[in-house]
């Protein structure tokens, strides 16, 4: 039953937040507004604490199965293992960060805002935990609508367009994935006569010969489409810069930190294990799609004048590493992809928080109108420097380990791709340092008075940085957990 808490707590918080903020006219200081904020924060913190307790207690794997819709063989089945646990912890951590980041920034319809955040988190946790494909699809779609609202209601100028774009892109992929789930379910059911959506039962479908090779490839493509849009893979990434830029800070944190990770998690958990043969056929192409993403994202980031957009494009580049790592079909590459996802979630989540703080203070996201922040706001500068270094993958940060492992994996399966990945690292250096230089160094571009980070913001960002450092210095903490989970894929790993 502990696992159900990961869904129940955010849902309960969503309810409390929504009820607390139900009065249409709100004044910022009203107690109910604070109540909805605190409820959302406590919910995320509780999830984080729960995940950490399970991690430290070594209680994985853990399962829960309750009947849900026996008529079609769908059950409420959750499974926690070494692959899902780090992501669950990340979701609790970034969920709390998202609430803290919007503590002052959101004054309109506060209750509904936090309800949407908590609802999104419930969906995300569901994705990371589901071991029934119907439940997985349910959770997968569940996180979309509240996220749509977060962008559409509380976003910046171009929010309506960005929100619809986000929804249509991810929904197209999601529906193709659902169609593929239905196809897999139908094929396996027709062969065995047992109609079930259970992950373990569908896992052997493609090796048992229930699927012809064409069907297997088509179904795999369906899954790949769903996850590649979310990741996003090069070519399907058009929604990302808009959505990240227009979303409010908390929305960007959840989007970059968690929603993108569901794509990578889905590839590692579903697309590749369910269809090993077809994935092997796709792997060379997928790796080069990843490489294209790394380079394209890097080049685009280099040319951005809007700081938030720059970070968004850097995400396209970083998530390209994940695709390369996963489809190198090598244990080192896969480990690297997971580490990369976790560190990207931490570093980009923190960066979005920093950009949000800057925008609140300066009223702009334009790099050209910043400059000189280091001198005026030293705390902000220090954290900005640390995050910039993480962004370019300096040793010590988790990003370094992730990128390095991905390179190891890529070298084993495709040397030219690995070389191209290396080019991406150079690009990262360039855009990260350019961003830091323009925003933090030099003279202020405008007359202004800049407030430094408050205690709450410093503490949140500091916590994210410490975790990032921990992943970078002691990746074994995550990897040993991971290797418990994936005996089929893991061959020991490089570290």
């Amino acid at each position, binding site marked *: 039953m502990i696992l159900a808490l990961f869904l129940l707590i955010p849902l309960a918080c969503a309810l409390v937040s929504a009820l607390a903020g139900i009065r249409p006219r709100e004044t910022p200081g009203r107690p109910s507004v604070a109540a909805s904020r605190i409820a959302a924060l406590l919910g995320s913190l509780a999830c984080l604490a729960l995940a950490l307790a399970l991690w430290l207690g070594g209680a994985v794997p853990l399962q829960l199965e309750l009947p849900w819709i026996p008529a079609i063989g769908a059950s409420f089945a959750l499974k926690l293992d070494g692959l899902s646990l780090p992501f669950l912890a990340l979701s609790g951590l970034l969920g709390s960060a998202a609430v803290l980041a919007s503590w002052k920034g959101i004054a309109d319809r506060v209750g509904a805002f936090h309800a949407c955040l908590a609802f999104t988190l419930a969906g995300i946790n569901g994705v990371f935990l589901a071991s029934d494909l119907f439940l997985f699809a349910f959770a997968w*779609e569940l996180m979309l609508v509240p996220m749509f609202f977060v962008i559409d209601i509380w976003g910046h100028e171009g929010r309506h367009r960005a929100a619809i774009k986000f929804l249509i892109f991810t*929904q197209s992929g999601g*529906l193709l994935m659902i169609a593929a789930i239905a196809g897999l379910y139908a094929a396996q059911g027709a062969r065995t006569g047992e109609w079930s959506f259970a992950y373990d039962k569908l896992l052997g479908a493609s090796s048992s010969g229930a699927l012809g090779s064409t069907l297997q490839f088509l179904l795999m493509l369906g899954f790949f489409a769903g996850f590649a849009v979310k990741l996003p893979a090069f070519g399907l990434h058009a929604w990302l810069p808009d959505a990240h830029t227009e979303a409010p800070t908390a929305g960007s944190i959840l989007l970059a930190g968690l929603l993108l990770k569901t794509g990578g998690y889905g590839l590692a958990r579903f697309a590749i294990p369910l269809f090993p043969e077809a994935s092997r056929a796709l792997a060379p192409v997928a790796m080069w799609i990843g490489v294209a993403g790394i380079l394209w994202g890097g080049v685009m980031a280099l040319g951005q004048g809007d700081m938030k957009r720059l970070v968004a494009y850097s995400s396209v580049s970083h998530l390209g590493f994940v695709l390369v790592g996963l489809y190198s079909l090598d244990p080192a590459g896969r480990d690297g992809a997971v580490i990369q996802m976790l560190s990207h979630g931490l570093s980009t989540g923190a960066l979005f928080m920093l950009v949000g703080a800057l925008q609140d203070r300066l009223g702009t996201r334009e790099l050209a109108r910043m400059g000189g922040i280091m001198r005026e706001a030293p705390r902000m500068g220090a954290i900005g420097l640390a995050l910039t270094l993480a962004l370019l993958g300096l040793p010590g940060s988790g990003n370094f380990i992730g990128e390095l492992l991905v390179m190891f994996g890529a070298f084993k399966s495709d040397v030219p791709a690995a070389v191209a990945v290396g080019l991406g690292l150079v690009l990262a250096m360039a855009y990260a340092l350019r961003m830091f230089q323009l925003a933090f160094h030099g003279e202020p571009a405008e007359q202004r008075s800049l407030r430094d980070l408050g205690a709450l913001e410093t503490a949140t960002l500091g916590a994210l940085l410490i975790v990032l450092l921990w992943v970078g210095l002691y990746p074994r903490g995550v990897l040993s957990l991971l290797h418990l989970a994936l005996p089929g894929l893991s061959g020991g790993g490089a570290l």
Partner: protein
Amino acid sequence: MSIGALFAAAPLIVLALAGLVCLLALSFSRRKASSAFAVCSGGLALGLASSIFLSLPRMGASVSGLLSMDGLSFIGTTIILACSLAIALASRPHLARREGERGEYYSLLLFAALGGCVLASAASLATIFLGLELLSVSLYALVAYGRASAEAEKAAFTYLILASAASAFLLFGMGLAYYQCGSLDLARITRAAADSPSALWDVSFAMVGIGFAFKLALAPFHMWAPEVYEGASAGAAAVVATVSKAAMVLPLARILALAETAGTKAGPAIVWTVAALAGASMVAGNLLALREERVKRMLAGSSIAQLGYLLVALAAGGVYGRGTALFYLAAYTLSTLGAFSCVAALSWGEAPRELFRGLAGRRPLVAAVMTASLLSLAGMPLTAGFVGKFLLFGAGARSGTATRILVFLLAVNSALSMFYYLRLVSLMYRKAESVDAEAKEAGPSQMAAKRAKEGSLLAGAALALVGLAILAIGLAPGGLIEAVSTLISRG
């Protein structure tokens, strides 16, 4: 006819009696709209109750060979009566507010429901046609009812002429069928067609098919829908979108089921035809809705597309396919009903998109139910539509090549449809002040206002119930899925 058969047909009898009582009451005093409303909603509720308590225990009974009260008919009757009841409740506040309110609306609603129920249980061509005409004639009047605008008249005429043409096609096809086997019984006809296929049979089925496609507004026979939905009042449009759709899907499902048991050789041809209609409707409906600024026209496009989705399951065939189709029918009617009830709560006549701007601040309940309905139509989780769509995918994937192509089309089209559903949802949560069309209408007399207020309470309760039902089916669909599949396999 035995007593048992009489009990089995009780819902139809109750409805017919209620309709007559309603008319009689009106002929004594045309102003007694309240009593007409009471008779109408009472009759519908009684019909629903008799269907559950009298008809259901006698499942499988045949009423003089013309009606077959089986699982299909029970499902259809339940959907049709529940929808009609909700529409009656949703219409009440508006009709009560109008000066010189008359009760004919309610009697028309009763007769339309009766026609729908006859169609749902028809076992013979004669009853199909009887039900169809009963439904259509009531609809002609409903569409034109109470609105003196040129638009409503145009809509009613469009509907009258096109639907009559469709009826003519249907009748011609039925005539050809009768000519070839000398019977009006559906089972006998499908068997005869399977035993001795001929070109004449093909023509006959094609004409019947065209008639059905017209009534269901399947592409390429869908042109009338947007105009009629827009011109009709919100209540009448709701009847067209829910009751009449459900009433036409059931005989179609029955005929396809009989054709399947008869083992016709034309099976693949039928599947491909249904699949082609399905694909065309999805695309045409969504393209229509994408560009639409007026909500009722948008919903017209949406229902064209939704019927296309539903046909995927019918094309897949088999007990599973039909079960899925009926589950989806329930989900679709419920969601569409919710959407139209919300439109009705805001405006009885025109419904531009701007009407919904900032609705969440002004009318939270209406906005919430509208959101649930639209998300359900879009197929998002927590709503009935998600489960329905998932089952459609499953049914399509289980079957042959045609439906597998449809599954792909279905995925792409649903994603497209997100645009217009969510655009409207988004509008409801923006900040803006606009006044309800209702508030702008000339102030009604005190008596009428009081009645309208009572009506609003009932309508609000019905609205909330529809919203809850959408969520309940979305969260725990197991019971409904099982009920539908047992009903289908028994019937």
